[in-house]
């Protein structure tokens, strides 16, 4: 009699286990619906636009409350750091379990479009947002491959500009921001002294490096992908472009070698805001400037110098950056998600959020707010509408960012540790990155 008990226990244990295993297999169809109140709830993954995840929650919360008031739909907000966002989206795509709505970096648009995870915004659906015409051209161009319906709608417009510290410029006897590369280097040298540096770069940030590789590549006339979509990362033009960027640290010594360690996307901004560096090539840093108590008397924004037109290349000095909003096909509450997209692109929300983040509204009717009349916003707007180019809208775009960004991380590390980085060394690294794209 004593023996039967463990015997039965073991069988029971195995059965329970088998039952739970089966149970887990049955559930995907209902997963994500979050109980009975699904119709009244959506889950939103926001990207980190402010100084911290907490800061983003503070900025977004009043808007989300307004949405709940208008529609009765509660929004479960999660702010996902940039380092995790793409992985989280990929995991959600693979498993079919994820949020209803998500923010994406607009350079990923075509790559994520290729996964088929997001609801395509055909003309009929775009009509619910007021139609294609309502959106700014450049921002709308960065929502997916040309010829296909976009799978995301732009919500924050951004681009690159050259921030400069007015006080440091004055002390160094510089009266206006640099307009050419030679001036930028000369100004940088004047600013570099007493532990301060001319320019700050995020030298170990894959995405920052990749963005600069694209911008300067275009200045030199490089095409990263040819018409058939084949990658050409190691062209002579691209090599020269990247060398020019690295030389700011290697040859001209206007960038602190320590910047080669900066990886998390905030340290270069911190150097600029704390006066350790006089210039910064960056997207909007409104929240950081506000937190540091800076006003437009303290800093200025100018376009990044354009190349000399006689040297060929293109008159490009920025990329069309920004944040798009995408709705998962697997959304538990698609109606709610689409309503949320309407809300996020509405005039009022566009004004409130873009004001808070210092980014540009992506819809034309939001510009009547005086907040968008500031020098900084006007300069950004000017750059975005004239000399900014969208990153290649091809499915392999995110691989380009990773591979070339990584190659540049290593090149910056070599420069910082005093190794000579030649044209050939740059080209070899780019060739390696190109080969890793495979077939």
């Amino acid at each position, binding site marked *: 009699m004593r023996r039967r008990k463990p*015997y039965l226990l073991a069988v029971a244990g195995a059965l*329970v286990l088998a039952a739970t295993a089966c149970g887990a297999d049955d559930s995907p169809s209902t997963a994500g619906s979050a109980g009975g109140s699904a119709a009244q709830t959506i889950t939103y993954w926001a990207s980190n636009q402010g100084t911290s995840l907490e800061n983003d929650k503070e900025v977004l919360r009043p808007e989300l409350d307004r949405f709940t008031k208008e529609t009765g739909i509660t929004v479960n907000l999660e702010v996902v750091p940039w380092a995790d966002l793409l992985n989280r989206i990929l995991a959600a795509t693979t498993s079919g379990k994820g949020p209803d709505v998500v923010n994406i970096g607009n350079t990923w648009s075509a790559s994520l479009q290729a996964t088929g995870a997001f609801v395509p915004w055909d003309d009929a659906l775009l009509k619910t947002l007021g139609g294609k015409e309502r959106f700014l051209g450049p921002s709308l161009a960065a929502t997916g491959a040309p010829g296909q319906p976009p799978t995301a709608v732009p919500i924050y417009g951004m681009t690159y500009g050259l921030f400069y510290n007015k006080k440091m410029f004055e002390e160094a006897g510089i009266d206006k921001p640099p307009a050419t590369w030679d001036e930028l280097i000369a100004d940088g040298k004047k600013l570099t002294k007493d532990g301060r540096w001319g320019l700050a770069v995020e030298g170990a940030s894959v995405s920052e490096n990749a963005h600069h590789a694209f911008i300067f590549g275009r200045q030199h006339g490089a095409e990263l992908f040819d018409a058939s979509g084949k990658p050409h990362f190691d062209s002579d033009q691209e090599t020269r472009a990247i060398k020019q960027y690295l030389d700011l640290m290697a040859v001209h010594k206007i960038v602190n070698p320590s910047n080669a360690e900066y990886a998390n996307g905030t340290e270069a901004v911190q150097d600029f805001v704390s006066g350790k560096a006089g210039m910064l090539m960056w997207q909007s840093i409104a929240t950081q400037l506000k937190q540091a108590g800076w006003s437009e008397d303290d800093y200025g924004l100018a376009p990044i110098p354009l190349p000399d037109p006689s040297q060929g290349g293109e008159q490009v000095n920025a990329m069309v950056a920004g944040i798009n909003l995408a709705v998962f096909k697997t959304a538990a509450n698609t109606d709610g998600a689409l309503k949320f997209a309407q809300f996020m692109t509405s005039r009022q929300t566009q004004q409130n959020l873009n004001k808070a983040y210092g980014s540009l509204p992506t819809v034309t009717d939001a510009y009547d707010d005086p907040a968008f009349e500031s020098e900084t916003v006007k300069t950004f707007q000017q750059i975005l509408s004239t000399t900014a180019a969208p990153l290649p809208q091809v499915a392999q775009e995110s691989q380009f960012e990773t591979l070339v960004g990584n190659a540049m991380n290593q090149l910056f590390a070599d420069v910082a540790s005093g190794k000579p980085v030649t044209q050939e060394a740059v080209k070899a690294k780019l060739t390696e990155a190109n080969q890793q794209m495979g077939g």
Partner: protein
Amino acid sequence: MVVSTTSRPGAGRRPASPGGPPPPGGLRRGIADRVPARLRRLALPYLLILPAVLLELLVHLVPMVIGIGMSFLKLTQFFLRNWSAAPSAGLGNYRVAVDFDGAVGRSLLHSFLVTVAFTVLTVGLSWLLGICGAVLMQGSFRGRAVLRALFLVPYALPVYAGVITWSFLLQRDSGLVNHVLVDQLHLFGERPFWLIGSNSFVSLIVVCVWRSWPFAFLVLMAGLQNISDDLYEAAAIDGAGWGRRLRAVTLPMLRPVNQVLVLVLFLWTFNDFNTPYVLFGKSAPHEADLISIHIYQSSFVTWNFGSGSAMSVLLLLFLLLVTAVYLVATSRRRSDA
């Protein structure tokens, strides 16, 4: 009391008839009574471990099999939502991974060699520190318990907290390491980098040893408890000094412990993902490009999950091979002795 108690009576015997779990109806008392008592007795150990085996299958083996399956697919972003639609790659992913003339294979080989060097150094240093600590703290003295607890702190800390602190310490401009080495001891003229460039390999080893030596210390300390004092006394009577006692008594008696410890440390260190990931972020420096991060890069970051899986399978095969060779070699030597 010797630690190795691998074979238990009965564990080697097989049930008389192909039994397995009886049908679910067997739970009912009547049927259970009808199963012969002998069979029931023989089946009991198997039934007892059945839940564990099933869980093991579910948690470990199923993902592994799926991973092996993935390695034969051309699984890129186009097929993420529906894996079954991914075209077969045959052995293509493997061919790319071991083609050492191509960029992918060459970098995999580089990463593999870096990992081997890193693992050998880390395991060696961890073991050395562990045995030193354990032997020195064998005798009792005032404050031994406190010191012992202190030594175990790195092992008890969450990986992230420990390693992120190291990454702050190792920063070039504001890190404590450079402050001490450069500003106070004036050992370097120029502030060295610790997180990028060739020094990153050293940093990685230091941090990993810091993390894993307490485990070696803990296990060896436990092993030392099992060595009888009689042996030391006998050795002392024979005139053996401290060093001789260490070589003739302590180390041979620790042999079974060491056999397991070195293997476990090797596998953990070789596969370590957390430490390099927290220390360097997504893109490790070339000089410290450990294979776990490398595979992660190849699959997650470049969205080629088939290729990443193929590399993982190769890694698995390598580790299985090393483990098998190691176990055969060490147990043969033991039976020779």
